[in-house]
């Protein structure tokens, strides 16, 4: 009970930075859509290239598919949190910068109510925004130019509460209800000239919106091999936000301000499918995710979005049988993953793509019921053709899955 209390306090401790100012992603592409959307996986999935739609939440939580919670061990209370450090280099045809950022990637608690029903709640970033972009404009009706500088910040935070039930012994269904909140801020600085006044137009969206997604998982055994199939689905959803547009003059005094509710932030229909194959101490996972961005329009985009496709494959192995007397590394789980995404951003003929390779390890803590999952992902995103930018990054993710025998302990107390 004491431990549980400690964890709860830590919990609150960890929430506080989430509620503060969101981190800079420093990606010019985050000007489009709701920002740069973060993939949802936790430690173990991240080590497999973000794959795992078909995998069950056994010793750790799998947030990629809400149906996965039904697979939790009945006596476990799982607490997960992850820290992420990212080193990046962003370059375009004439300049390049490097940087580092770190933040809390997620935290979540999973629990089983009954042998056939389990749930999880937690918090994680949904999207992040951070950009600084110049645009040359013309005064309509003249040949005079002026420059707008767009500076974006903020991000959407997701609080979710997911529940899964076993419909049949091998078929489970999950429903994930999320509450999305947080600010998306764009400041447009207009550089003054003889014909244009210096001014700043600030556009803020304060999101307060529910978001729903669903999942199915089905397991079957063939010989000594376990197979699993997973499906996830989220319908197209409009996020409601309080939109505040304020125009400031060069002295930063308000000229005009408007505030109204809007639902222009739309998350397209998302469909995911995965296959999992487990044999002895090895697992393989293949995922495909489709996001129908071509149906979605944002005011800032000049060109149509493209549908995005993401493929990922992950491999997990325990090369040695777990034994208490083993040297540490022999009890580790080793993971590897790869992902390729053709994103929804298309500029002229260039569709932005990303590729990433991950290596990871799961290190057991406290007699194999808790884990620390470490992964290192290297990847690229974007292209340096034209005015575009390319990001190269290295992400270190450290995730903790702390399994408490909470219900059992209470009896002993």
């Amino acid at each position: 009970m004491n431990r549980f209390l400690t964890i709860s306090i830590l919990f609150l401790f960890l929430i506080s930075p989430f509620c503060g100012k969101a981190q800079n992603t420093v990606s010019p592409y985050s000007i489009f859509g709701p920002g740069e959307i973060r993939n949802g996986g936790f430690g173990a999935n991240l080590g497999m290239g973000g794959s795992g739609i078909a995998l069950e939440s056994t010793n750790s939580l799998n947030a990629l598919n809400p149906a996965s919670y039904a697979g939790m061990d009945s006596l476990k209370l799982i607490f997960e949190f992850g820290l992420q450090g990212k080193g990046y280099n962003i370059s375009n045809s004439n300049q390049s910068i490097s940087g580092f950022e770190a933040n809390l990637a997620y935290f979540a608690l999973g629990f089983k109510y009954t042998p056939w029903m389990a749930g999880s709640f937690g918090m994680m970033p949904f999207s992040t925004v951070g950009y600084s972009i110049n645009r040359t404009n013309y005064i309509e009706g003249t040949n005079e130019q002026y420059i707008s500088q767009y500076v974006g910040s903020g991000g959407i935070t997701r609080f979710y509460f997911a529940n899964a039930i076993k419909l049949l012994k091998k078929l489970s269904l999950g429903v994930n209800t999320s509450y999305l909140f947080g600010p998306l801020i764009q400041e447009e600085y207009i550089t003054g000239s003889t014909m244009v006044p210096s001014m700043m137009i600030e556009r803020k969206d304060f999101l307060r919106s529910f978001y729903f997604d669903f999942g199915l998982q089905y397991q079957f055994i063939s010989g000594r091999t376990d197979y699993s199939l997973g499906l996830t689905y989220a319908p197209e959803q409009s996020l409601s936000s309080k939109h505040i547009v304020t125009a400031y003059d060069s002295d930063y005094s308000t000229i005009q301000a408007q505030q109204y509710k809007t639902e222009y932030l739309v998350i397209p229909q998302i469909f995911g499918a995965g296959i999992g194959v487990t044999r002895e101490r090895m697992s393989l996972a293949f995922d495909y995710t489709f996001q129908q961005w071509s149906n979605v329009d944002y005011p800032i985009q000049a060109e149509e979005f493209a549908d995005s496709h993401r493929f990922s494959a992950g491999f997990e192995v325990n090369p040695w049988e777990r034994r208490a007397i083993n040297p540490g590394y022999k009890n580790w789980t080793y993971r590897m993953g790869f992902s390729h995404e053709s994103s929804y951003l298309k500029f002229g003929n260039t569709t932005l793509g990303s590729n990433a390779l991950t290596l990871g390890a799961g290190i057991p803590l406290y007699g194999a019921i808790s884990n620390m999952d470490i992964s290192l992902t290297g990847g690229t995103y974007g292209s340096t053709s034209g005015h575009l930018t390319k990001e190269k990054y290295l992400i270190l993710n450290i995730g903790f899955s702390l399994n408490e025998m909470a219900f059992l302990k209470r009896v002993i107390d």
Partner: protein
Amino acid sequence: MKKKAFIALVGWLFLLSCHDEESLMVSLGDNYINSQTNVALIDTIQVLLSTVKIDSVPTSESDYLLSGSYTDTDLGKISATGYAQIGMPSADIDDDEIFDSIVICMNYSGMAYGDTLLPQTIKVHRVREDIEPSDEYDEEPYLYNTTKFKYDETPLGSTTVVPKPNFHDTIAIRLNDELGLEFLSYLRDEDDELETLSEFLEYFQGVALVPGDENNSILSFDADSSFQIKVYTHIIEEVKKNLTYTFNYESTSQNHFNNVTNDVSGMPLEQLTTQKEAVSSNLLDKRAYLLGSLGYTTRIDFPGITQILEVEYKNILYNAELVLKPLAGTYKNQGELPEELLLYYTDKRNNVLSELTDDDGYSIPSVLYYDEFYNESTQYIFDITNFIYNELSDGYVDPEDGLLVMLPDTEYGGTLNNVVFDARTLSNYRPTLNLYYVFYE
């Protein structure tokens, strides 16, 4: 347990300490971002010009005395008669002094209107009424361009010259000797001596500078101490001694003004009879007039101004400028165009209301762009942002509110500075209201 807390704490600190603020300023290419802000120039609101004639223009505050007449093709025959009072010197005149001559001297102000290459006649007449504002104008004790006073039919003197206001400083006109003798007799220490200025002004009310019939220009003289009558005498004592007595105009106490009239019979401007009516440029050959001292001013109307209220997008109207062009051919050089013009609010009766000023109450003079080479883009630009703001401030725009283009005070009542505005709609010009908007979403 301690270990766990330690890990979490380290993680949390890590989060706080590592945050890179540097960002890459990029241009993604202007085609990819749909600007949600548009700065636009909208110049489709119609600008109508008409001509108004102010009933009476105060001319007694001016620094100039005008005299002459000329015929303008549009404005008719313009005649100006300057009136001025003259003060008295304090003099001790010997009984033996012998009168020689009496002369009126005037300084050219440097300005002239009409054709100064031809001979001009100026006749100096003695005024026979007190040059004073009439009682009905008590509140504004001015003398106006329409004011008249009786003067003797026979001039005290006259001259016909080819004036060279830019080469000569002064003009001197010899007056009737009888006046000189009279002046001397009234200054002598006798029973009928005039001792005070008011006594003198009762006796000699002033002079009127009346143009001759055949004049081709109006000349402008300084209304200051250089405007004077001089009486020359001599006395023979041991040697001959010449003496001069100067009868000065003193601006602090004396009155002067210009009576200015024009005759437009049979001309388009004949339509203009009272200030209440404005004659559209459509009836004046697509022209609108401005002329100092006679009260011609150009009225500006924006019949479509209510459109401003109908703009659907969020917008900031940050600048409004009015562009008017003087009609090419109506001026020969930049000097013939007023350097600055001002705007006044007006109502449907063409009353001159308050001046259009900036937020601090300062004048916003127009800017004249003079196209020395082609004359094509010579134009006046007026900042009328505050006018538009005022019109919009109560959410209602009165299309009967207009603006009057006026000369600055110093030119309004003492000069014949003028502009003929071009009111045509051409492919590259029309009187234009430029509205600069920031539209944003």
